[in-house]
Structure formats: C-alpha cells, structure tokens
C-alpha cells in the first residue's frame, strides 16, 4: 500500500478480522437439502459439484472406451470387435473426452466452485445463467447419447467432410448435441468474464487477482470467441446432410478443405480452453505448497492471455499436408512456434518459484510435478510437430496421438487431479487418505508413460493413427501400450475410490489445511451458503506469504454482507484500521 499517499481517491474504511469457523454448523450442504434443492439451485458451489459428478461419469465412460480400443489393438488383426465398432469407439472416446470432460473439467467444475470464493464474491454474476449452462451441457450430453444409441458415428471426433457428410449413422444428431454443449461453454465464459470484472472484493485490484482467475479469464475469452465458429461449422454440416446444400462436399460443389479451416479455427483454440485453466491450477498449488510468492506474476498472467490470443492464429498447423498453400503453411508454422514461448516462460517461472521455498511434497504438488514432466514432453513434441518438414512425416501417426495425450492427459488431467486434491477439503470438508493419493499419483504417472511413450516410437516409425489392423512390426509397441493403459485405468479407479471413501470416513478438514494465503481458504470448509458472512477486504496479493495470516482474513467491519450480523462471530480483539482502495 505504498501508493496510498499519492492516490487522491482513497477513503478510509473500517475493517476487522474474521477468523474462519473451524467446525461450521451451517454450510452450503446443510442449509438447503433434498434433491430438488440441488436440481434448482443457483449456488455456484452446488452447480460446480453437479458438473464434477457429470464429468467424472463421462471420464469413466470415455476411459472405458479407451481401454476397449487398446484391448482391440493387442493383435494386428481383429481381437474382439469389428472394424466399424472400433471406429465408433475411437470417435466417441475423442468426442466424450473433449466435449464432455476436458472442456468443462477445470472451468465448469472446479472454476465454478472456486472462482467466486477467490474473488470474495457471493456467487457468479449470473447465477441462473450458470444453472442454464449446466442444463444445456446435460441436454447436449443426452442428445449425444441418443445419437450413439441410434446409429452411432464413425467419423472421428474431427467430423472431416466429405466423409462425415456421406457416411451413415447419426452424424447430424451428434453434431446437434455438440452444438448445444457449445452454448453451455459460451454461457460459462460470459458468466466468468463478467464475474471477474464486476464481482471482485474491495481492494482486489487486477494485480492482486489470483492466477487461477487469470487462467479462467483467458479461457473464457477463447470460449466466447471460438465456440460460435464451431456452432456455425456444425450447422453447415447439418445443412449439407439434411438439405443437400453444397458447402464442403465436392460432389455438391463444395470444398472439403474449407471444412478443415472452419473446424480447426475452433478446435485449435479449444486446446487452449482445455489447458490454460490447468496452468492456473499449477500456479495456485505451487505457491501454496512452497509457501512462496509466485515468481513473475505478470509474466504468468500475461502469458495466459497471449497464448489465448496467438492460439487463434495457428489453426493451419493441423493442415500442413491437406493441400493448403506452402506460404500459408509457413506462416502457420511460424506463429505456432511463437505460442511455445509464453508456454516456456510459464514453465521457467514455476520452477523459479520453488527456489528458496518451503516445499511440502503433498499429493496435490506431486500431481503438479507429474504435470510438469508430462506437459514438458507434450510441449516439446509440439515443437517437433510445428516444424513443417517433420510434421509431413509425423502427421496422423501415433506420434501425434502420443503428443496430444501428453498435453491433454499428462498436462490437463494431471492439473485437474492436482486441483481436485488441492480443493477437495474445501469442497467436501473432508480430508482424503494422503498415502493413497501419493501411491495413485505414482501409478498414474507410470501407467501413463508406459501407455504413451511407445506410441512416440511407433509413430516415428510410421504407424498411422485410427488403424484397426496394423502391420506386425508394430505389435510389441501396441502391447506395451495396452498394458500401460490398464495400469493407468487402475490408477484412476483408485483415485475415485479413496476420494469417495473420504466423503464417508474422511477426517474433518480444517478451514485452511495447507496454510494457503488465498481467499478461498479464509472461509470455513465447506463454505457457508453465501460464501462469506462478511464483505472481504483485500490488502495483500494472493501470494504474499511473507505477511501474517491475519492480514488475509479482513472484512468490512460495518457490513454483514447483506445477511445481517447476528450469525457472525467477530474476533474483536483483532479489530484494526487499514487503508484500502
């Protein structure tokens, strides 16, 4: 607050310390109960949990499909399913994991729960819109399931034309489902941007915004700008299939490469929708468990925004061999390398944050280190693929499959699990078994590498992706990969079990088990229905670990945050005067 003297708009406000309750009697879970209160809730925390339950379900559905795919690939010819079934499985695995798990995972599930708490707000800006996004997501998911049961789809998650406009099955229904889910994503984006702009607690200037919020902010911008393009593209595919209007199908006078431009104009930024919120989780967990100020706050915040921006300009790197102009390929390749720089900056900054920290290797941090290695490999192989000459050889081989699984599973799923473990005590009020969490993290890490490292090798050797049969020389790699996938699957099931078990048998979680300075830890676990009984006041940055904990628990002395003061316990001995903006 060294600028206090020069700023003429300063006014003095009375603040006092509000210690979080250690054993809250009334929480968001106990105040409104019953199934109806959940289904009609506008509470961001309950909506976040409903999202969490839904994405968990779809993650295991998609995961089961992955295991079936890997099992089929045990032998070079048919192992236990038909080629067409296999094609449907990899299509659904991709679509479910991307549209029903990855895109909503961190923003809609964890973000919904944590964002308003981190901002010191009672809820998101548009609570009803938030509930609507959840139901749109659910509706889209049901339409997609209906499509699967009514003919299925075998186009791959990319729906490339003219294959998708000519093949049988329920392509139109499926694209409609994804169209609807897209609107859920857009509404969440609008909601988060408004919330971050308008609902920050007094004193929370942009330079005190937690990096998780910066990540969600960048993500939301991509969501609202890119998703409409997907909606338009899918609508055009549907028009072509239903009305026979030639847009992409050359038999009708259309251009199939145009489809690829449209599709990747959404789907490349979508990659950043999936990974940027993960970056936010990494910053939170690393600072908390090293009890240290983040290194290069602005570098990390701005790099998220620049990834979001440059991410819009690189879609053509999916199309180096599609027949697009060589000049276009050159420009897209160049821009793609530029995205690598802000990503690299983040990695270096996180490492530097650990320097001279007080590092406690708890399970969330362990998951982050898993993220660190796997995402590093995923990112560097991205550099390989960004180089045109190398991409010509590696495009559409298992090298690409391994690359994006390292980024999406190794990066995003690990970051999601880190976030889930980190905020689990806050969300549920229960502690999970730390030992089990560490073992599961190790199993997932090993299983993941056994699954996907061999895929780099066979990809470099020329094994194409989406192959039902393959030539015998690749069999050893496929078999190692299949064994790895079972280990990986076991690891995820283990996480599910010990987390669910903690709900019933877990120890009660204290308000701030990790000693974090972030605002969401300055309320009870689980939080009250309206998050804060007081209006929080922010005087320090979220990573100011050199300042005492008391300074992070301040709120307006005069207000009860609109709920009256009767139920507020005030520790009046800590009452003090602080300058705040």
């Amino acid at each position, binding site marked *: 607050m060294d600028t206090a003297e020069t700023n003429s708009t300063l006014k003095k406000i009375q603040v006092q310390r509000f210690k979080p309750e250690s054993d809250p009697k009334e929480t968001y879970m106990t105040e409104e109960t019953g199934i109806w209160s959940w289904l009609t809730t506008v509470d961001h925390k309950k909506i976040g949990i409903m999202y969490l339950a839904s994405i968990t379900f779809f993650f295991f559905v998609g995961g089961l499909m992955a295991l079936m795919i890997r099992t089929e690939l045990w032998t070079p010819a048919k192992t236990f399913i038909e080629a067409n079934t296999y094609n449907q499985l990899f299509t659904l695995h991709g679509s479910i994991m991307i549209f029903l798990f990855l895109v909503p995972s961190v923003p809609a599930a964890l973000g919904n729960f944590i964002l308003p708490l981190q901002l010191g707000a009672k809820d998101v800006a548009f609570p009803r819109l938030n509930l609507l996004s959840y139901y749109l997501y659910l509706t889209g998911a049901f339409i997609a399931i209906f499509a699967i049961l009514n003919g299925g789809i075998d186009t791959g998650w990319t729906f490339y034309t003219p*294959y998708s406009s000519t093949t049988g099955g329920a392509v139109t229904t499926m694209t409609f489902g994804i169209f609807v889910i897209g609107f859920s994503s857009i509404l969440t984006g609008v909601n988060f941007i408004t919330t971050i702009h308008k609902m920050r607690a007094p004193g929370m200037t942009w330079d005190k915004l937690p990096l998780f919020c910066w990540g969600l902010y960048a993500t939301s911008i991509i969501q609202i700008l890119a998703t409409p393009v997907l909606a338009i593209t899918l609508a055009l595919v549907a028009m072509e299939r239903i009305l026979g209007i030639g847009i992409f199908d050359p038999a009708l006078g259309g251009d199939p490469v145009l489809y690829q431009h449209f599709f990747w104009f959404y789907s490349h930024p979508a990659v950043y929708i999936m990974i940027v919120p993960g970056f936010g989780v990494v910053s939170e967990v690393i600072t908390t468990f090293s*009890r240290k100020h983040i290194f290069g706050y602005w570098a990390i915040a701005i790099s998220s925004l620049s990834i979001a921006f440059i991410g819009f300009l690189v879609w053509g790197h999916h199309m180096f*061999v599609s027949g697009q102009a060589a000049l276009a390929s050159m420009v897209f390749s160049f821009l793609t*390398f530029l995205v690598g*720089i802000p990503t690299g900056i983040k990695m270096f900054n996180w490492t530097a944050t650990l320097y001279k920290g007080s590092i*406690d290797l708890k399970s969330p941090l362990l998951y982050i280190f898993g993220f*660190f290695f796997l995402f590093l490999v995923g990112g560097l192989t991205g550099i*390989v693929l960004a180089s045109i000459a190398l991409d010509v050889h590696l495009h559409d*081989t298992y090298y690409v499959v391994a690359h994006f699984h390292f980024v999406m599973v190794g990066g995003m799923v690990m970051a999601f699990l880190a976030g889930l473990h980190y905020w689990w005590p806050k969300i549920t009020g229960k502690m999970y078994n730390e030992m089990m969490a560490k073992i599961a993290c190790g199993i997932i890490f090993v299983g993941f590498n056994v699954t996907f490292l061999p895929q780099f090798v066979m990809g470099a050797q020329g094994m194409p992706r989406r192959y039902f049969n393959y030539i015998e020389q690749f069999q050893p790699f496929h078999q190692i990969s299949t064994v790895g996938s079972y280990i990986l699957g076991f690891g995820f099931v283990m996480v599910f079990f010990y987390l669910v078990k903690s709900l019933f048998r877990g120890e009660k979680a204290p308000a701030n088990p990790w000693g974090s300075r972030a605002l969401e830890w300055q309320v009870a676990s689980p939080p009250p229905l309206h998050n804060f009984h007081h209006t929080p006041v922010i005087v320090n940055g979220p990573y100011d*670990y050199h300042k005492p904990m008391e300074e992070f628990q301040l709120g307006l002395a005069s207000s009860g945050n609109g709920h009256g003061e009767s139920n507020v316990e005030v520790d009046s001995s800590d009452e003090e005067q602080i300058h705040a903006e």
Partner: protein
Amino acid sequence: MNLLNDLLPPAKSTLAHQTDALFWFVHISSLVLTIGLISVLVYFVYKYRRKSDDEVTPVITHNNKLEVTWSVIPLILVLVVFGWGYKVYMEQEVIPDDAYEVNVTAQKWMWQFKYKNGAQTNGELHVPADRPIKLVMSSKDVIHSFYVPDYRIKQDVVPGRYTELWFNAPEPGESIVFCTEYCGDGHSNMMAKVIVHKQGEFDDWLAENAGGSGGSKPSDLAPAEWGKQLAQNNACMTCHSTDGSKMTGPTWKGLFGHEAKLKDGSTVEADENYIRESILQPQAKIVEGFQPVMPSFQGQLNDDQINAIIEYIKTLK
C-alpha cells in the same frame, strides 16, 4: 547410432536424411532441456524441502534479466527449428522439372496408379530408381492421404482437386504405402507398395503392361488363377475374405451358389449374374448386415477379367 537409426524407418529417398537430421536436432535439444529442467526441479524439491512449519520464505517477485534470458534463448532456438523445417519442406514442395509423372487415384479402399502409356496397376506403384517421380493425385470419394514412411513424405488426396507429391528413391527395393486420412472401415487395409526397379527393368515392366495391365489372360495361367491375381491386384481382398471370416464385405468362401439374404428381406442366389452385377453396380443388392460402401468397378475390369474373378470365387468352397 544404431539405436537411433532404428527409431526411424530406413531412409530410402534422397530427402529423407534431411528430415532425419532435423528430427534428431530437435529431439536431442529437447532431451537436454527436459533433463536440465527436471534436474533443477528435483534439486529444489530436495534442497528446499520444508523443515519446520513456521519457515518464512524470501520475497522474490521477479527478475527481469533472468526472464528476458529464458524468453529470448528459446525464441532463437525455435526460430532455428522453424527456418530449418521450412527449408527442408521447400525441397519437398518444389518438384524437379524432369520428374517422371504417375497418376494416382484413391478410393475406398485402394490405390490405383496410371502411367502415360496406358499401363495401370492397383496397389503397386512401380517406379524407376534414381529418378524424381511426380505423383498427381486425386480421390474419387472422401479424403485419403498418401504416406510413405521410408521417404518421409505425406500428402492428402482430396476429391475434386489434384494434389502433388514427389520423391526420388536412389536404390531399387520396396516400401510400404499407408493411407493416413481416416476413410472408413477399410482405412487400415488401404495400403500399397512402392516397387523401385532399376531403370532398364522398369522400362521392361512398363512395356509389358502398356495399354492396361493384363486386359487379356496371360497364357500360362488358368482362368481361376488369373482371377485370384486380379482379385489381389484390385484390392478385393481388402474387404472380402476367402476363409469365411467377416470383413467389411461378405466373405467369398462358399459364396457361389448359396442364397444371400438381402437388406430388404428378399433372398437371391449368388450366381454368375449376381456376382457380375455386384462388381459393376455394387449398390443394386446389399446383403443383410453390410454397409453399401463398395465402389463400382465399371470401366476398370473388362468381361474377361470379371469372368476370371467369378471362376476364382467358384473355387472357394
């Protein structure tokens, strides 16, 4: 270096080594960076592990010099990789003027190659060694992609337009061709072979096949044997098994003379007329349990050839 060589397929074209050099440059520098960064991480985690619960950490918010350094050095490195990759790509793109031209047609699920003198093959691309070969490619249905791992080249084959690709294989030999753009149930069987001949041998082969490959029966083959050869050359085996197993299309084993149950509920006896119709107009009668995905062979097989294939099917009991 043997281990490294085994990680990539053998380099059998004049440009393959250039791709490989870049491949190793990026991978080895990435490996160094990964080991470096992970070592620092592990060292920090050990060195700065929490020893007591009331430790106070120093306030280090940023360091401009350090941050500029680790932004600029990677930037230079990636620009090198960009420039290098683009340079090699341009050599892959610019087709030499004296290249020998072959037409490629892709369709579900076969590769067809046509030569200037009328020679035509399915699934086998015969080319002379040590000479630039230019492929002019188009698709009859959906997007396919022509990929030869040994040559490190790949190009999508798109319906409604021509795409081009070139290579120069200095030594005689064989290399596998994969389709790498997903194109349906037979995608993973849509393979072909590049067969590189010495120039003289290639000329002989070309002369022998002038005017359409084997439009009439070679005298040393029985009709059924010729039919078997034709079935293989025309990629029938991609979808039809001869051992009774169910693939994309109905098996040929025991096909002749049996009653086929059709999608509309009717049945038809698989006689000569039925088989002939199925080859020329595959969508006319669809067997129950199968998709209408077979391409027509009208104009590709003459009557003698169709007869030979029927003779071959008759032998599969």
